[in-house]
């Protein structure tokens, strides 16, 4: 399984865009059943800019 996120976040004064990639592999999973928790390694890069003070 592969996951990609493209998100927008906001702290108190910052606006952040981030791209997250999730390294999960589950080749023989049976998706007709919910397998529940699936751990994976994840990497994220983000860019932030000031929007207020």
């Amino acid at each position: 399984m592969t996951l990609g996120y493209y998100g927008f976040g906001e702290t108190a004064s910052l606006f952040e865009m981030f791209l997250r990639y999730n390294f999960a592999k589950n080749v023989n999973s049976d998706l007709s059943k919910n397998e529940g928790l699936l751990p994976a390694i994840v990497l994220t890069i983000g860019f932030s800019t000031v929007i207020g003070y």
Partner: protein
Amino acid sequence: MRIHLFTFLFLIVSLGQIQAQSFKDKFFRTHGVQFDATLMPSYLTESTPQRVAQYIGGSLIGYHYGLRYNIVELSDNQSIGIGIDPNVGILSAGVFSISETSGLLSASIPIEFSFTTGAGSTYNSSANNGFSIRGGIDLNFVPLFFFDSELNLKNFILFLI
């Protein structure tokens, strides 16, 4: 022995006071929307497990709420921290699925170490822009619920009731 014990307790109290004062200055929170795409293999049906198809889902929109604590602040514009960014996908449907299963809702809990520079790295930073790179583990529930057939309005309503 009593002297040593007293000293030990004194140090603990002192560290606690320092930590209480600095914790707020190193604690960051964020929230916002997100989009995600999922690609995973799937059996076409339970009765034909040897046939594998690709399940493709996507969250049209999701919400995340993140917390970060700066473990080390290298300077006013650089920090190393640890954070958690739990998020929920409003819809993770097999819109593009060629299998007979569809899913609804997704959730994940990334726990990441981060290196942040520029804006957002520390509260003392005066930079207008910032960059961060994070890595760690992610705990996933994708999708949260499955349907035996393609997700449609009828199935969605039946699921809700």
